[in-house]
Structure formats: C-alpha cells, structure tokens
C-alpha cells in the first residue's frame, strides 16, 4: 500500500440551474478513485455551494495511482427521481508522484459535461502521500518524468540519451459496443473518455517501466496518439526518447531526482547493454544521397525494400559497398565506429527529439520515411500480441534500413502517424537519418559532454551538412560540392530534414513556411481493392510532393528544408498530401539554381513566347523572394568553387518533364510566390523558431483555426481538386495574417497543418500555431534597411504579386491546351552570384523520372504486402489508467478566488523573454463533445468554436491548479469532427497535450542591462537545450 490519496471538495460556483421551479440547484459531489467512492453532503438551493468537505482518503497502490484518474462528479440531488449529473472533472494525479513536482493540486476546475459543455466550476484540493516501496517487481514506474518537448527541457541537462521507447495498447471502442445502442450518448461518451484516460495512463506507466529498464529517468519528446479504428477498436500508442536528465540547478546526482522507487531500480543489474559490440566491423557507410529533388532516401527505400528485412536484421551486410568515410579522415571513421557500436545494440536507434545538445548531431543524411497500407480487422483476441505491434515494427525496420543506406546509424526527429478511412489504414513514419556523437549515448561518459565537444573541432556551423555517405558510390546523381563554409568536406546541394534548425547552423536571411499540397482522386472501393488502389497512388503522390517542395524551395532562393512533415490523408474517394517545412538558406550549401521551363515544341512561336513570359515571371519571383527573405549570400569567385564540382555532366542535364503534373506544379509554385508577398511582414515557419529572427518580444498568441470545406461540384478532377485544396490553405493563411495583424511585426511559429477527410466531399484543415511578436528595430544589425524598405514597398509589391498568380493560372491553362504535358521543367542550378538563367545547368528530368519509376515499382511491391491483421489487445479495463489530465505543482501563492490567473499556451518549447523554472508534468487530455441541438448552438461553427475554447479553458485550469502559468510544447493531436445536420447533431473529439511549467519573466528575474535581453533571449529562442 504505497500511497494515500487525499481529496477535499471545497466549493462550487456558477453552477447551472437544475431546478426550474426555484431557479436553484441542490448540488453534491461524488469523488471516485478506482472502485472507491465518497460523497459530500447536499448543499441545498445554491448555485455557489460551499461544501468544505472533510478529506476523503483513498489507500491505493502506486500502479493504480499511475493508471487511474481521479473522477469527480457533480450531481443535483433529487428526492423523488434519479439524481441528475451536472458534469465531471477528471484529474490526473501523476504529477503528484514525482518528488520534484507538485505536492498538491488545488484550484478551480471547469465542470465538464459531454452534452452541455462547461457548467460551472468546482474547487478541489488533492494531495498524495507516497510511501517508499522496496518491492522490485512492482509494475509501476512512478518517478519517471515525461516531457512532450522534443528537445532537452530547459532546466535539465542530458546526461545520457538512451534512445527510443514505444508502447501500444488496444481495446474495443465503447462507441461500437453493443451496449451503446441502449445507453445514452452521455454515458457512451463518458465511457470512451474514461477508457482512453485509463489506456493512456497504462501506456505511460508501461513506457516508464521501459525507461527504468534502460536506467533512464525521463522520457523526452513523448508523443501519444489515438487511432480510432472504428469497429476494429481503439489503439493508443506512444513513442518517446528515454533520457537520463539532471536538473541543472541541483548539482546533486540525478538519481535522487526520482522519487522512491526508481532509485532502487537503478541498482538492479540489468543484462542490458553497454558493452559496445563491434560485430559486423567496419564503418561501412552505405551511401545514399539525399539532396536531389525528392528525398533520395525515399527512392532508395524502394530499391532496398525487397531486401528490407535482411538489411535490418543483419545490419551491415547487404548495404556494404561503402568504404569507410574516407573523406572524413580517420577521425570521422572512428567517430562513426563508436556511434555505430553505441547504436548497434538498440533495436531502433531512433530519437523523437528535434533539437539536440550541442555536439550531439554530427552529420545529417536526409529525410527517411516509410508508409504502408493496412486493412483493419476486428480485434478478436485483445490479449494476444500481434498485428499492430508487428505493423509498426515493420515500418521501423524499413526506416532503419533507409538510414543505413544513407550512411547513418540513427534517425532523429522521428515521428509516426496514421490515417484511417473505414477499414483502410495508412501507417507512416519519418525522420532524419543522422550520425550522432556517441558520447551522449553511453553510460560512463556522464561528465563533461559539453567540454568534449570542443575537442572535436568540427567546423563551426556546417558540420551537420557534410554528407555522411560515400560520394563515390552514390546510387543516383546528386551535386556535391565542397562545403561553402569550411571548404573541406562535401555537402549536397539541397538538404531536407525533419528536425529543427541546429542552433549553431549559420543561415543567410530569414526562413519561410513552404508547403506542398496535393489531391488525388481515387475510385471508391472496398477492402483490398481499395487498399491496392491507395498503394498504387502513394508513390505518385510522394514523388509529386517532393517535386513541389523542391520547386518551391528554389522559387524562394533557398537550399534547405527543416521540420519537414508530410501528411498523407485517405478519404472515401480521394487522397490528400500536405507537406510543410521551413525553408532556409544554409551558408554551407551552394546557392540553389533557378527554375527553367523549356518547351517541347520549340517551333511554335506563340508557345515559345508564352514560355519565355513564364520564365521571366519565375525569375522575377525568385529575385523578389530573395529580397523579401534577405537572402544575399556573399559572392564567391567562380574558380574557388569551380574545381570541386566533380563531373560537369551532372550539372548540365536537361530536365524533361513527362509527368502530367508538371504544369500544375508550376501553377502552384507561382501562386505560392504571390501569397508570400501578401504576407509581407508576416513571417511564418513550422519549426520552433524562425531562422533569421532572434529578437522576440514577449507577446504570444497561440491559436487553433479549423476550416471544413465542401467540394461543390460533381465532376471533380484532380486539377480542380488541387486548386480547391490550395485555395483552402492559402485563404486560411491569409485569414490568419489578417486576424493577427495587430501583432505585426510578428511571426507565426510552429505552424502545424492537419488535413482530414471526414466525409465524401468534406475537407477539414486544422491549424495550430503561435504568433510571436519581435522587435523589428533591434533585428537590425544585418537587416535594418531592408525591413524598412520592405515596409514601404509593401503595397506595391502586393498588387503586382497578387496579379501574378492569376495570370499564371490562366497561362498554364492555356499552355495546357496547346501542348498538354509538353512543358519542361528545367532545374537550373547556378553558381552563386551568377544569374541563374545564364548559368542554368539543368538536369535530365527523364532520368529523374526513371529513377522515380523504379522506386514506384518498389513502392507498389511494398504496398501489396497488405495483410489482414488481427490485432493484439493488451488492455484490461479493470486496470484503469489515468486520463492524463494535468500535473500539479504546489502553487506558491494560492491565487485568490477573485481573478483568474493568466496561463500562456504555446506549441514551442520556450516562452520568449522568460525563463522556465520548473516542469510540472505533462498534460494529456481527451475530450468528447456532442450535441443534439446543433442549430441552437450556432451551427457547426458555433459548436466547434465553443468546444475548442472550452478545451483551452480546461487545459489552463489544470495547469493553474498545478501551480503553473504556462503550457509549452502544446499540441492538438486530434480534432475529429462529425456532423449530421439533418438530425441537428454533431460530435467532436479532441486530444491535446503539452508540458505544464512555471516561467518567470526575465525582466522580473533580475534587473537586466539594456542589451542583455536580446542576448539572453537568443539561447532560449534558438531552442538551445541548455539555458542556464
């Protein structure tokens, strides 16, 4: 009996009127934990009852403490009939289980009802007394800290980064149980909320156990998702990165940090690692090149996919061919060897982190991703471990082998997602292949990892760009040049990654959000036919998404993408692809070439004219973008660069477009160009911070915006569909800029787009982001004049550019008519400083296409391995798990009831101009809201608007009750909206998570000299992990 949970119900306020006759309510409260229930007295005839109850005490195991949520139900007493429920509050008591975190949860919680929404508030105090438990075979993992933040949390130091942890639990969805036909919607919703709460509590506990086994004490980059598989069940899965963290302020060892149990755990000798196993010798570095157009890793994946399993099982063999990184010299080889051995023993050398301690990331290979299409099947035997785990294991193996092909031993910025439509499910995983510094990965190197990094004397700010693979054995052509920074190592001409821009990376100008958007119609089909159709479409979509990204990147005059996230969504009759990333100009990489269009029928005069017209516009756009984003790389004399370029032929290939999509691509590109000009001073990115802006001021505004569009016409073509989708996204962005105009100059950071296809003709786009103001005038050092100039220029630019896309649309249509699919896209890469047009070296598109085809074949192959799965279920309902609702910290000054304290929310891991002093625990909340009076609640917009506002309110209330004043790394992981206007009904499910923290304004922290705020802001902003 390791714990005693104590709960006190203080008071309620703003309760709804439950008795029409008296316009009052006779409220009482039921407090339930596990199977024990307590009740307060009835407080008669009041909307603001003062219960002031005794302490209700629950004696429980810590396993239950971890799994179960505290459930508080407010009811209206009725003498003659059943008591009416007013609403509920679920409180996750997990935060009370860390010794470092809260000792009390206390505050006003909104009383939530799935049918009526928030109905008043209740004041609750919760405490936990934990006893030390010496039982080593217990099932709980109290004391392991969880962070959603995908970098090392600010007030901690990473002693060891152990690596990947994952877990998955399955259950039947209460919504689809037979009993659902006879119970009320409210009962059904509550059953679902409670089940998910239990499952996520259990999941977290199990992951905690794995972390303890690895001798870690924390999970960073914890990402938990729900798959609502409908009939076939409910899957809750989570991934994260196990770490051993050390609190910065306390010089004491990190172990005591964990409460009671973990300490003992640590001493148990596990048969685990750390003897660096050196099997499969050599630093053979399979070479796969990133760089060109679509991420090569992908194409690689196709080739290798057949032999996938072999590869992954016997890591080094198949890929062979590579000689050790000779260009890197012995050091590099050595490094690789070490890293390799450190990682070798891990099943999956994956890291969900997107930002790293200095020196951790050595080289970046490029994006690796894998997808597979699966058919869902009812879970027959929930306890038999099978399918779902196997599915993911398969995908992870593929990712792992792709990374190896790129000469990398690890995958960073790793994430997984699903898209489900009826019985078809697309599983996706992606990350960035990388070579890591082994020191962080092993035990016994605890000390001085920071100092060590200096010894390594990697060239400042460019090391990560250097290719980790062998240049002589690249599977397909890519342009390698000597690094523009250090001139010693080879770099690719373009770099795609899923991580944040490393802190030490040097960039020129500002970054910008780049999106590729794509729709593909498909026939409605059933089961396997459907799955096959989808698998056939996938490769084309991926290819095109990459082409779009590449072209848009060039149009911006940039050469690298960070934070790349590609989402493929499946619907009844279409597939949608949406890729978002932040483009930047990395100093270390060569200047991107321009884009050239060539006609296939050069004799046609008018056509040529048209082409040249387009060409001019494209060139103008590139020039304008360069100005807008302040990209003005120093000119470098040709000779210096000239020599290292290995084979000129590589640089002078003609890109020949055979893809029907090429004109669409152009259309999209240009419209994109225009939009950005509209934006003007509104910068946006999907990474933590905006490259090139570092003087944030303290105003932040996190928001969620949702749009659902109905596709009107019956004869949809891919083209109209693409245009509709593109317009939807563009308009949404424009609306955001307009709405937030009062914050200008500001930047939208961590822009997170999610697309779903709830019904046949509906497209739902959900955006969550944070707008942060910055000081334009301090920005200056490098950019002052430009900013002002761009301001003045604003209006004119605008108009010009606004017309631009229109013309182009018509243009491209026109061209389409007289020479369908005859346009050529030339990708011209020019050396820096020389006009693109002159120097245009183009690449042979057809070879490109061939490559593509080959990997398309492979994708098909891959995709056809669809299997009917039977799913393992590992959940038992009785073992409840807590609906992770909030983590609580002692509030330093229990705020008076009078005013509501401000709680900031942000998807970023930091708060500009402030220092995070304490992490209080993760917030992970799941809500269902349903209505049968949709019209009365203001239609679908009114309904969802109110619901999202309520979700925010509940998150804030939980954070405040923990004593926190902000949520960082906030994410809305799911927003599933269903409507039935004919029945006047709608239902919505929302899942959000984040880290509750206490922050202190830097200005309050100390009196700071005028320059200091900027300086001190910088490390925080740059996502640096160690902010002291």
């Amino acid at each position, binding site marked *: 009996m390791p714990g005693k949970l104590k709960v006190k119900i203080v008071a309620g306020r703003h309760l709804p009127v439950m008795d029409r006759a008296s316009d009052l309510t006779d409220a009482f409260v039921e407090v339930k934990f596990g199977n024990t229930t307590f009740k307060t007295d009835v407080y008669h005839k009041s909307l603001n009852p003062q219960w002031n109850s005794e302490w209700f005490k629950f004696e429980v195991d810590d396993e239950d403490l971890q799994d179960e949520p505290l459930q508080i139900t407010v009811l209206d007493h009725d003498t003659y009939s059943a008591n009416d429920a007013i609403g509920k509050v679920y409180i996750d008591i997990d935060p009370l289980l860390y010794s470092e975190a809260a000792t009390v949860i206390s505050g006003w919680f909104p009383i939530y009802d799935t049918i009526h929404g928030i109905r008043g508030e209740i004041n609750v105090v919760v405490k936990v007394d934990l006893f030390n438990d010496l039982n080593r075979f217990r099932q709980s993992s109290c004391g392991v800290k969880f962070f959603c933040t995908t970098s090392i949390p600010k007030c901690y130091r990473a002693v060891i980064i152990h690596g990947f942890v994952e877990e998955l639990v399955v259950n039947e969805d209460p919504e689809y149980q037979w009993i659902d036909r006879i119970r009320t919607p409210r009962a059904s919703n509550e059953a679902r909320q409670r089940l998910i709460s239990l499952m996520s509590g259990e999941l977290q506990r199990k992951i905690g156990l794995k972390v303890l086994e690895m001798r870690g004490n924390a999970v960073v980059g914890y990402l938990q998702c729900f798959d609502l598989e409908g009939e076939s069940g409910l899957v809750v899965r989570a991934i994260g990165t196990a770490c051993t963290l050390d609190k910065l302020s306390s010089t004491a060892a990190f172990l005591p940090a964990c409460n009671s149990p973990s300490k003992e755990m640590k001493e148990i000798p596990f048969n685990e690692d750390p003897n660096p196993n050196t099997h499969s010798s050599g630093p053979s570095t399979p070479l796969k090149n990133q760089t060109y157009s679509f991420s090569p890793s992908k194409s690689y994946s196709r080739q290798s996919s057949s032999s996938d399993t072999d590869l992954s099982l016997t890591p080094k063999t198949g890929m062979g061919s590579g000689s050790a990184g000779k260009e890197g010299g012995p050091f590099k080889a050595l490094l690789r060897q070490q890293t390799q051995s450190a990682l070798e023993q891990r099943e999956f050398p994956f890291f969900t982190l997107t930002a790293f301690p200095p020196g951790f990331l050595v080289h970046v290979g490029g994006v690796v991703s894998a997808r597979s299409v699966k058919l869902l099947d009812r879970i027959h035997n929930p306890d038999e471990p099978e399918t779902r785990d196997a599915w993911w294991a398969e995908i992870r193996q593929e990712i792992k082998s792709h990374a190896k092909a790129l000469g990398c031993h690890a995958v960073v910025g790793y994430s997984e997602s699903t898209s489900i439509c009826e019985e078809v499910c697309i599983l996706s995983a992606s990350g960035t292949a990388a070579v890591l510094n082994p020191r962080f990965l092993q035990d016994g190197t605890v000390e001085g990892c920071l100092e060590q990094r200096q010894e390594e004397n990697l060239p400042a700010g460019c090391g990560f760009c250097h290719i980790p693979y062998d240049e002589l054995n690249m599977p397909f052509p890519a342009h390698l040049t000597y690094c523009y920074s250090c001139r010693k190592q080879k770099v690719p001409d373009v770099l795609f990654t899923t991580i944040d821009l490393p802190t030490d990376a040097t960039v020129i100008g500002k970054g910008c959000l780049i999106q590729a958007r794509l729709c593909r119609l498909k026939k409605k089909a059933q089961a396997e036919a459907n799955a096959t159709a989808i698998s056939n479409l996938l490769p084309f979509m991926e290819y095109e998404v990459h082409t779009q990204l590449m072209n848009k990147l060039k149009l911006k005059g940039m050469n690298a993408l960070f934070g790349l996230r590609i989402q493929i969504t499946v619907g009844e009759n279409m597939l949608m692809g949406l890729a978002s990333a932040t483009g930047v100009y990395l100093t270390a990489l060569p200047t991107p070439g321009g884009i050239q269009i060539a006609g296939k029928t050069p004799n046609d005069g008018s056509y040529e004219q048209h082409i040249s017209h387009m060409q001019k516009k494209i060139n103008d756009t590139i020039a304008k973008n360069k100005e807008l984003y302040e990209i003005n790389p120093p000119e470098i004399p040709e000779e210096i660069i000239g020599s290292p370029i290995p084979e000129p032929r590589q640089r002078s290939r003609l890109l020949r477009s055979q893809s029907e999509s090429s004109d669409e691509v152009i259309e999209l590109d240009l419209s994109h160009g225009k939009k950005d000009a*509209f934006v003007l001073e509104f910068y946006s990115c999907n990474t933590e911070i905006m490259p090139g802006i570092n003087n944030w001021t303290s105003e932040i505004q996190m928001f969620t915006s949702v749009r*659902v569009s109905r596709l009107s016409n019956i004869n949809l073509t891919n083209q109209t569909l693409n245009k509709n989708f593109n317009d939807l996204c563009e308009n949404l962005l424009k609306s955001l800029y307009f709405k937030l105009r009062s914050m200008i100059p500001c930047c939208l950071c961590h822009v997170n787009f999610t697309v779903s296809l709830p019904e046949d003709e509906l497209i739902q786009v959900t955006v969550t982001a944070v707008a942060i103001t910055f000081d334009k005038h301090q920005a200056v050092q490098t950019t002052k004049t430009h900013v002002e100039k761009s301001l003045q220029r604003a209006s004119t630019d605008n108009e010009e550019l606004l017309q631009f896309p229109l013309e182009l649309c018509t243009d491209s249509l026109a061209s389409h008519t007289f020479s369908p699919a005859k346009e050529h896209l030339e990708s011209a890469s020019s050396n820096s400083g020389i006009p693109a047009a002159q120097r245009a070296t183009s690449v042979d598109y057809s070879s490109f296409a061939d490559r593509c085809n080959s990997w398309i074949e492979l994708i098909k192959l891959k995709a056809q391995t669809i299997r009917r799965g039977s799913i393992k279920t590992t959940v038992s309902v009785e073992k409840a798990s807590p609906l992770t609702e909030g983590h609580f910290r002692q509030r330093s000054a229990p705020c008076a009831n009078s005013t509501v304290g401000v709680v*900031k929310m942000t998807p970023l891991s930091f708060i500009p101009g402030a220092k995070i002093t304490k992490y209080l625990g993760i917030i992970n909340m799941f809500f269902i809201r349903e209505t049968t009076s949709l019209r009365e609640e203001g239609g679908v917009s009114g309904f969802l608007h109110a619901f999202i506002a309520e979700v925010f309110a509940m998150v804030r209330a939980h954070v405040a009750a923990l004593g926190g004043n902000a949520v960082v790394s906030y994410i809305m992981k799911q927003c599933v909206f269903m409507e039935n206007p004919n029945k006047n009904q709608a239902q919505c499910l929302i899942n959000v998570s984040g880290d509750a923290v206490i922050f202190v304004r830097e200005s309050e922290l100390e009196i700071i000299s005028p320059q200091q705020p900027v300086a001190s802001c910088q490390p925080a902003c740059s996502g640096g992990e160690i902010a002291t």
Partner: protein
Amino acid sequence: MTNELDIFVGNTTLIDEDVYRLWLDGYSVNDAVGLRVRSGILEQTGATAGVLQSDTMDHYRTFHMLERLLHTPPKLLHQLVFQIPPSRQALLIERYYTFDEAFVREVLGKKLSKGTKKDLDDISTKTGVTLKSCRRQFDNFKRVFKVVEEMRGSLAGNIQQHFLLSDRLARDYAAVVFFANNRFETGKKKLQYLTFGDLAFCAELMIQNWTPGAVGEAPPFPSPSLDSQVDDMDVDLDKEFLQDLKELKVLVADKDLLDLHKSLVCTALRGKLSIFPEMEANFKNLSRGLVNIASKLTHTKDVRDLFVDLVEKFIEPCRSDRWLLNDVRLFLNQYSASVHSLDGFRHQALWDRYMVTLRSCLLRMYHD
C-alpha cells in the same frame, strides 16, 4: 467550394474594437462587412472580402458567446472559458452597457415593461438606432433596474458593484433607474430640448437629497459596503419629505408672507437684474408655481409631471421674458435665501432640502 465551418480560437480571446462596435450597433454580419469594406480596411491590409467576411463572422460568434456573460459582468471576470486581459474585459463591459443618447431620451421615465419593449420598433425608426441595438439597451436598463431595485445602499454604488461599470456610466444608470422607478414624464414635446445629461444631473441631485437615503449625511457615492446606511434607499423619493413639503404652501397661501418674501427679493436684486421689472411683475406667479409643485408631490401623478411643471411654471415664463441664465441664478439664489429672513416661516430646513436641489435643477434646465 464553400466553407461549412470556419473558426479561429485564440488562447487569448481576440477582440476587435471596431467589429465590437458594429456588433453593438446591431449590424448584421453582412452589413458589418460592408461597412468595414467602406472603411478602407481591404486597401490597408491587402485582405480580400472573403477574409473579411470570415473574420467578421468569427468576432460575431465570439461576441455572441460573450453576451451571456456580459449580462452578469462579475461572471465575465471569473469565468475560465475566455482568457481576456482585464483591460479588455473592462472595455467589453463598458461598451456593452453604453447607450445611445437618442435612445435613452425615448425611454427615460417609461416603465421598463414588455409594453415599452413593443414600442422599440417605433423608437428604432425614430432614432435611427437599429432595433437590435435598441433591444440590447433596453434589456440592459431592465436588467440593471431589476438587480438594484430592491437593494439598500447607494444606487450608483450598487450598480457599479454588480455591473462593474465606470463611475460615470454607473451614475447614468442610476439616473435611468431612478427615472424609470418614479416614471417621470420626459417625452412631452416641450421637454424635448432637455438632454439626457440635464435629466441625469437632476436625477443625481434628487437621489442625493430627496430620497430616504439622503437623510443621514451619506456621501454622494458611498463605498459599496452598506453597513453604514442600513436604511439607505435611493430608488424612491422620501415619502415623509414629500408629505412635509405641503407645509411650504404657507409661503404662497399667506399673503403677508408672500408680499414680504417678494419685497425681500426685490430689494436685494434691484439694479442687479436686466429684467427686473418683469421679475417684479411675475414674482408671485413664479413663487406660486414653485411652491405648488412642492406641495403637490404627494400625488404620484404630479411626481411624474415634475419636469413638465418645472418647465411650464418656471422656465417657460422666464424664457418668454428673456431672462438670462445669470438672471435666473441671481433670482433663485435670492429667492431661496430670503426665506430664511421670513420670521413667520418655520420650515427652513425643509425649504433648503427642497430648494437647493430645485435651484440646481432649474439652472441646469434653463437653456434653449
């Protein structure tokens, strides 16, 4: 392709003051979009009409959700759903309760009942204030009235406490409540020249001096803590006082007293007034008018006609003789003061309570 659903929810609720004003003014979304387009916002920001439409809808939806809370402003402060900085909360409340001059003049002194609510159509047509806005303002009056009607303590103070209004606005509401409660007639044609400001000024003085609450030395706006003035009721006129006012009748009924009063005033003002002869000729009429008004205030009907009577019996005669404001001031000062020299008159305190207020009211009302 049409947007079925289009929402934006910020962690801090976005409030656009301009859109709020349009919403308060009762414009439909489409009208509001039209007005915003005309304001040139599209040119300034480079937005499109679609963006503006979506933005306006969003704000309207937010305001609609906030409206329920605005009905009981303290709830707005304590609710958890909308995170709004305190300054913005104050602005929302203040603007929501602000009313139009044109509208309030139509409603002032009327019973805040369903009957009046039915007349809002006409008022809307007459004043040019949209019906929606009229309804909101009317409902505000009614809601404030209902809450404070039965309360003890300072009227304006109560309003401020329960509706979190600024000092100025709370006083205006006090006047509205006072007028509605006493049903003073303000709609007659000859009263049209009076502004809401004039009437609110009078109401404030009457609340200070003529209500039961005025009897102790209650400060004009005591703190909301009611302990000190247990019997302070500001909404009704002091019945006892009105009853006592009958005693003043002697000033005009007793011919000697009237003559003496007249001679005292005339002696003092001779040479100081531009319209001395007219004053001298009219003295008895004016005095009779003022005193009769006082003595009739026991009848509800006459209370209602107070302002009509003041205008008919005093302001109009003076105006027709072209008295200047300064003449009126000198006259009223002297007229009130001289009574203290009338030995046979024993109700000096009563007279002062009546005349101090009346004098200020008349002076404020004496304009074109």
